[in-house]
């Protein structure tokens, strides 16, 4: 059994109780993915599984055999930041930085959902293409908590990059 983490095949854990989050952090030493609550309430552990955002604390690592996982460490190409990472710095979309990897991975997954036309609670026209308005971004990102309160900067960073690409 193996998982593909940021393009590299790695063995799945022997202990089936190990969450994907703990496998990343404690076995693979990929500590960019954060543990905030370990019960799916805060979003800090969000990673991308085949491009879809998932909560890695609620995922058992062995369930992801053969799947492709992208973590925050896998977003930057060589030394160049992903445009959303750069926008987080530009718009000051964080303070302590602990929820940041989850926010960034979640936003990338969220934009992909919007491109596929997945509606949200605030979508008014279920048949039209999704436009990521401010309210749409806020609603779709509400599973990612930020206690420092960098929400305004996070929304600006998302709307200036991945959300703008959806609307285009």
């Amino acid at each position, binding site marked *: 059994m193996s998982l593909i983490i940021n393009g590299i095949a790695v063995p799945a854990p022997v*202990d089936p*109780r*190990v969450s994907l989050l*703990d496998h990343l*952090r*404690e076995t693979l*030493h*990929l*500590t*960019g*993915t*954060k*543990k*905030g*609550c*370990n*019960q*799916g*309430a*805060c979003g*800090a552990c969000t990673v991308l599984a085949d491009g879809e955002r998932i909560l890695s604390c609620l995922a058992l690592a062995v369930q992801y055999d053969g799947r492709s996982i992208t*973590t*925050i*460490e896998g*977003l*930057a190409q060589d030394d160049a*930041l992903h445009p959303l*990472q*750069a926008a*987080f*710095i*530009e718009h*000051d979309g*964080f*303070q*302590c*930085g*602990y*929820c*940041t*990897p989850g926010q*960034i991975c979640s936003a990338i997954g969220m934009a992909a959902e919007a491109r596929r036309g997945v509606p949200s609670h605030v979508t008014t026209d279920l048949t039209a293409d999704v436009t990521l308005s*401010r*309210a749409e*971004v*806020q*609603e779709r*990102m*509400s*599973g*990612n*908590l930020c*206690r*420092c*309160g*960098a*929400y*305004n*900067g996070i*929304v600006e960073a998302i709307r200036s990059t991945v959300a703008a690409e959806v609307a285009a």
Partner: protein
Amino acid sequence: MSIVDTAKQAAQGLMQGAMEKLVPLAPDSWIPGGVPDPLIARKHGLIGTPVSRLDGPLKVKGGARFAAEYRFDDMVYAALVYATIPRGRIVAIDQAAAEAATGVVLVMTHRNAPRMNTPAVFGSSPTAVGPADLPILQDDRIHWNGQPIACVLAETQEQADHAASLIAVTYDEEPSTTSLAGAKANGMEQGLFMGQPLLNEIGDAEAALASAPHRIDHVYRTPRHNHNPIEPHAATLAWVDGGLVIHDASQMVTQQAQTIGEVFDLTPDQVRLTSPYVGGGFGSKGLWDHQVIGAAAAQLAGRPVRITLSREGVYRVVGGRTLTEQRVGIGATADGRFQALIHSGLSVMTPHNSMPEPFILGTRAAYAAPNIALKVEIARMNMLANTFMRAPGEAVGTFALECAVDELAVQIGIDPVDLRILNEPDKDPTSGLPFSSRHIVEAWRRGAERFGWSDRPATPASRRDGEWLVGMGCATGTYPYYRMPGAEARITLTRDGDAVRATVEVAAAEMGMGTSTTTAIVAAERLGLPLDRVEVAYGDSAIPGAIMAGGSQQTAAIGAAVIAAHNALVAELLKLAGNDSGLAGLSPDDVGSVDGGLSKRDDPVRRESYASILSRARRDSVTVTAAGSPPLELMHWSMHSHSALFCEVRVNAVTGETRVTRMLGSFDCGRILNPRTATSQFRGGIIMGLGMALMEETQFDERSGRIMNPSLAEYHLPVHMDVPEIDVIWTDIADPHTPMGAHGIGEIGITGVAAAVANAIYNATGKRVRNLPITLDRLL
């Protein structure tokens, strides 16, 4: 207490009393800040221009290493077991199954834990930061429901968590006090803050209230709150050569190292505590039981330990803000001038700690009134020790005070902004000291203009948009300017070809406030170097001095220490420059740092670069360390930050749901050093205030003393959808008496927000809710 201790305290009291009488009378020039910091006059440098966080690239790549992300070889994982009764004794612990479980290395309880000293409780000495005056795992006594009573170490976290679940504990429960009514019935005490009674009496406030033409007299209640930083509290630690190395999440690095050292009878140099990144703190990232238990278990097992609290564990081990019941009485003349101001009530703490919620602090300097009565009393309950949480005192005190002012404005029929300006004091109403810098009226006027306050519905419950009732409210926020003693800075200039690099080391903490970036900006300006030539080191107990990221004072403490170190550096460089330099014969007061060197202040042509001075002296580097001046300015002026807050809400007439649609904070906090990070700090504080207003409550079971919502699913805090675009402006008027002309801004943001929201809800609905949080049920 011994006779020696008593004598020492009496002597300190006499000294303190004498200082408090003399310092206010001293000439300004004798006081730190009496001569304005030269950086205040510099208008075209880095200070005041937006700079992105220097640690930003690392944080967005997930490369910043937090406490639970360090590793030691052969490290084991800890899991804790928590008591399920509020008070009593442990009769039996069945740990056989846990000990037999796969991977278990150690089960530690009070029966086999090493003998340790009780951590010195916060406030008992300048470096004491213990959570409560209680021994940790030293006896069979239970003091709160949730107290850690056993620790399991195992090869993996999963094994440790499972084994901990196998431990069965039998208790002998003893009578406890876990209800507010019971605590009150046990009797109340005068609350003390920093050793001083939370009590002010000027004139006869009760009589003046009774005879005033306009009177407001109500009780306001605020519940318990938890800080809930997204990073759970954690430490990765090891015993190395008889000393302790701890990678911790700490906002009081040096003090924590020292207190832990005393627990284990170690000398200060035997404890090395690092904390370069902290995933949010808000007052909570200090010393609690888990670091001590982790270190004890590591000692017993002979293995390094990672101890990470589960989210529930954070609620069991890390105290939050305690509840308050506050009476505010305001008596005013027919035209609205305050004749009486009463702010009194109670907060709850445990028998073993000393942190009353000091909700009158902001009221002391808020409004002019000839008769003032302020008092905080304490009731005690068997619970987890409460602690400071963002703006302790002011966050909840301004809710009561500023709602009462709004109620008075309604009664008189005056605009609440005008009522506040009408009662603006010209000196501190309780201490009598002059204000160092107070431009709150300007903040009010600029804020009202920008927000469109004149469009506020004059009559409550008069504006409706479909199902939604629309209203506006305002409130004042306030937080004192503090600067704690103990800060030091070490500056090293190192020759790098024809230029120099500077390293500035301070024992400070960075929880996301932007401290490391702002410190670099200020140091670059002070040293006359480009920003990329300055490196800031912090978050390490090996750095001299002790600085706390608390009381919104870290920037001021660092600022004063860097001023002192810079003075020492200039003196040292002049010595090294010697007689062959163009600077020969000049004293440190004659020269300043400009463009990578020293220049004569009034004749800048007389200069020599740092690199040249070092080169001629055949030195690769020069290092100086200096301590900041004693903070006597706090006794000489009344020093505060202020905000004028404006809020627009929509309240659903059918469901009672409140949505905050617009929010403006207009701040008067001295000179803003880095607008980019300052904006985030202000907004972050305001957002925590929105949570306090509408949803946050640590639910406490009054039967069992157990916290009922120990998770981020059940403790509601603001999410993206709850937060509108928050507009933030500031006066940017430098306080002439502080380093850089700046004030700390970490806590002012939360103050006043709950009142602004409550007042807006009243304006929208005509319903006055005096208990937080203002949930849907309270509006139906």
